[in-house]
């Protein structure tokens, strides 16, 4: 029973970062109709950004993370401006392939910049775990969880309570009307994509210290992000938030009770099952007709 609680807790903590990843992707995929196969690379950039700020520039840990997130957002904005804007009218296949090209270029760029040897990010937290009755958890993971939740809540508020958020939702529901109302469509696209990239970078900045950094770390992160998006439904913010936790818990239970080697297979299997059974997501209302 204790083990089960521990797994559940681990799953919840890890899952909160999966939620971050998933929210970033679901907004870009759902709102912009762009299949961002480079999503994982923003995660990697967030992680390496934190590393670079910490180790290279000796910035404080608690400052390095926001810097890395801002850096991710900036790279995202640049990519949108250079790659997606010119292709605005193109088919979804073309944008998909362009994103794949970006993925390849970024990952190998990271490989060249930082080398293939795994790096670890030093943290200011003591490694002594916090014991809460039958379960224990590291301080770092508590920190990661708290920040993730804050970011998720902040993102939700941004989308629902601010003018920018309203402009974003309006643009993707009815572009022409939004434009007539004075919304700068181009700016919204850039902001949305940068937002998605920032969420991914946040995931990387937070999880980087928990695990190790290596250039292909984004691939797994992207796959998990896609799992979350499919679980929660395309464009569904709350679905992605819940889906992330679901994935985290499923992985933990799978690794704990079945086999740790196949841990990452959980995400793949979820994708396959969801696509076959209910592609619109667990939390979508009845299938749209037509």
């Amino acid at each position, binding site marked *: 029973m204790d083990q089960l609680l521990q797994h559940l807790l681990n799953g919840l903590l890890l899952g909160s970062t999966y939620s971050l990843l998933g929210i970033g992707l679901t907004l870009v995929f759902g709102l912009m109709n762009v299949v961002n196969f480079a999503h994982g690379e923003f995660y990697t950039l967030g992680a390496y950004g934190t590393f670079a700020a910490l180790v290279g520039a000796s910035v404080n840990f608690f400052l390095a993370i926001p810097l890395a997130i801002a850096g991710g957002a900036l790279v995202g904005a640049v990519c949108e401006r250079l790659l997606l804007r010119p292709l605005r009218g193109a088919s979804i*296949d073309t944008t*998909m392939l*362009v994103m794949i090209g970006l993925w*390849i270029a970024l990952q190998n760029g990271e490989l060249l910049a930082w080398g293939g040897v795994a790096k670890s990010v030093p943290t200011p937290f003591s490694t002594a775990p916090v014991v809460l009755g039958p379960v224990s958890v590291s301080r770092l993971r508590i920190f990661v969880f708290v920040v993730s939740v804050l970011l998720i809540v902040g993102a939700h508020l941004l989308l629902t309570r601010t003018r920018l958020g309203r402009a974003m939702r309006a643009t993707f529901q009815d572009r022409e009307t939004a434009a007539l109302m004075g919304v700068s469509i181009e700016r919204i696209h850039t902001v949305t994509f940068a937002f998605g990239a920032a969420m991914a970078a946040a995931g990387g900045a937070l999880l980087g210290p928990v695990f190790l950094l290596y250039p292909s770390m984004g691939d797994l992160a992207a796959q998990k992000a896609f799992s979350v998006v499919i679980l929660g439904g395309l464009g569904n913010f709350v679905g992605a938030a819940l889906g992330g936790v679901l994935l985290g818990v499923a992985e933990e239970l799978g690794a704990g009770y079945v086999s740790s080697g*196949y841990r990452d297979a959980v995400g793949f299997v979820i994708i*396959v099952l969801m696509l076959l059974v209910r592609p619109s997501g667990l939390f979508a209302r009845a299938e749209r007709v037509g």
Partner: protein
Amino acid sequence: MRRAAAARGAVIVAAAAAAPLVVWNPYQLHTLIMAGIFAVLALSLNLLLGYTGQLSLGHAAFFGIGAYAAALVSVKLEMSPWVGMLAAIVLPGLAGWGIGRLALKLRGAYFVLLTISFAGVVSLVSVNWMDLTNGPLGIPGVPALAIALPGLPELSLRTKGAFYYLVLAAVVAAYVLCRRVIASRIGRALVALRENETLAESVGIDGTFYLVLAAAISAAMAGAAGGLYAHYTRFVSPEVFLFTYTVTMVIMVVAGGKGTLAGPVVGAVIFTVLPEALRALTSWQWQMLLYGLLLIATLFFMPSGIVPALAARAASRR
């Protein structure tokens, strides 16, 4: 016009057949062999991407299943390597059929995700299921292919020169197979699926059936390439599932010209020969970085690929 095209094809094949007589440097011959294997792979991916319009990012999985099938049949089951080649074609073909049937109504990005996930699971299985695949250690000692006809001495395909002819034959066979499929009503059905699936259904074209068919044939071809690879390198490990193979295939098809038959072959030759030429100058990371940038550049400036761009230029000059 068809005769002119056939004549052109015959000349190209003859030139290719004469290559080993001119190119006797084993390293260069190795490059040509790999170009041939990739040509079969690119043609297989093109059947899906270029004609039905669906992108499979898991094609390395079919390649890998084919390689492992060939290796396991000839090493663990100790059967003739040709039976292994047959398994290398049939097993991935069944897997492709399965993916197509599972995918049903999935199109576009969802189909891509399904193929990525499939490839991911297969890759993890190859690493973790030690009893079957030896895990990361791989399967060494895959025997060479040999042609043993009754009454004739056995012709071993162990040397690079001999294997080159086998690969050339495979490329020609793959090309002809694709051509025949495309030139028939099946090809039209595939293209109709790509251009306007709803309209296609309304005139009786069963989208699912043809997607499954294309997926099965495409997977079988990729598997054949895998089998060839296994009997050439004589060693199979989970590295066959590396995403770099899929990426390279995609570049070859997109830059070469998807939806044409010459495009993937041209792409395969360019993107096998080019890296080998660059190898002396740069590392493979730079090469992959360039691939990514090249993919983006192609999509921006030459979206239909090299072969159609050249053909268009030739047509406008006439």
